[in-house]
């Protein structure tokens, strides 16, 4: 399995990454090397193996529906690049 440069560009776009043309060529190359390495696994016959979603099997841990203290708004907003002390502020999302 391998990806084309266009496919790599599409994946980058979905991840909100901007690459220069040179970077794109280089990352496409790297990505394909990784895919090739991993593709060795394709040699194993897994037709009778159930898909594994999690590498560990244990009883799932669930929480009771009980309140725990939230953090203060001041703390919540502390690391944000921009706030108005009430909301997180992001660049205007264009309205429909």
């Amino acid at each position, binding site marked *: 399995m391998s990806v084309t440069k266009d496919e790599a560009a599409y994946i980058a776009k*979905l991840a*909100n990454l901007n690459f220069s043309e040179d970077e794109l060529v280089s990352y496409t190359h790297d990505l394909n090397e990784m895919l090739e390495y991993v593709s060795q696994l394709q040699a194993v016959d897994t037709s009778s193996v159930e898909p594994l*979603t*999690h590498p*560990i099997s*244990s*009883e*799932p*841990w*669930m*929480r*009771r*529906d*009980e*309140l*725990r*203290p*939230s*953090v*203060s*708004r001041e703390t*919540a*907003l502390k690391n944000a690049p*921009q706030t*108005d002390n*009430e*909301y*997180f*502020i*992001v*660049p*205007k*999302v*264009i*309205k*429909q």
Partner: protein
Amino acid sequence: MNKEYRYEPVIGLEVHAQLLTNTKIFCGCSAKFGAAPNTNVCPVCLGHPGVLPVLNERVVEFAMKMGFAVNCSINQKSIIARKNYFYPDSPKGYQISQFELPVCENGHVIVSLKDKEPKKIRIKRIHIEEDAGKSVHDLPYGTGIDLNRCGTPLIEIVTEPDISSAEEAAAYMMKIRQLVQYLGICDGNMEEGSLRCDANVSIRPRGSETLGTKTEIKNMNSFRNVEKAILFEINRQHEILEDGGSIIQQTLLWDADAEEARPMRSKEEAHDYRYFPDPDLLPVIISDSWLSSVRESLPELPASYIDRFTNVFGLPVYDAEVLTQEKSIATYFDEVCKFTTDYKSASNWIMGEVMRILKEQKIEICSFPITAEALAELINLCQNNTISIKIAREVFGYMIVEKKTAGQIVKEKQLVQLSDEGAIRTIIAEILTKFPNELEELKSGKEKVFGFFVGQIMKETKGKANPQVVNTVLRAMVTEL
């Protein structure tokens, strides 16, 4: 041929219901609506790195309840997945949801439309997921993000494309609202967004097996809007196909003010969610004992109420359906019937006067001033002929304003019905002498005048005379003359 007959609509709905849990789905922050912005948040729902989500068991319980209510099979092992997309109100860059194995699958509901055969609508799946935050667009300096809602629990209920009209879609929505309210898992308020609906709409030539290209409509925030938006889209697609055009697959936003659906920008709908199992969350395992205890804890559902109201109380199906539309009304009726045996009158009072007041005063039955027991007392006063139905309506009005019992009001205002034949006879005799001309007419067989005399008698007794006794006595006296 009419275009309505040339094509048939094929509609599927995705309904999101906000669950009435105390806390969010993966952390202990309050899930309550209406708090000051960014005060119900913690590192988990803020999407900080290194935190671990822990599933709220009540979310799974509520999903199971809905599953049972719509005849689903419950998957005792289900997988939690990440749905990847970027939007400012989702700080992690993905929504925690379910993809391959949801909690519930393969159910159905039956919806009844007036004058039509009951219709079965299959439910493909019900899964659990987290909600996103809210964006505030009217700030001058940017878009404000409030993450209080981020991480609050939802179930998404997805139908098969079994719905074939806008009317059916609205009826299905009402059915879902009725069920979530009976189960107590969601308040069902569409206007406030605790119940939301997206519709997939396509049309195809009648009789065809292949599906046409579908569009998705979002942003319909009332039952009326669901119906209007889907009807709009069906008509739009009809026109395009009639003109020889073809439908473009796209997402439309319903504008309730303009009453039209407008396409979203194609950029916003480049969906490629790359779902994968969330490594932070183990599969959800539902034990046999949990499953059966939830099944046993199910409250009485509308179908059972309807069954009881028709078979035990002998109500017409129509009455039973009206009374069970909202659980609070159904339980009020049930309560009234503990104190009276005149069930049909109880139904009439609730469907008529009570619901009229609720509508006029825009209140819920829980804030209605007349208790079930007090209404039953009024009904009993009618049933045992202490007061006439006409006076009862008057008493009902006083009960609302004065907050006294029917018995007190009847006593204070001296409204007891006059049924004594002798007394009525005396009153009639007086009135007959007052109107000699009309009496002559009545004697000569003019039946219209009979009503005139009844009216005069009622006027004289301020409506308190028992109308049946008045009729009998008057008829007898006229014949005697």
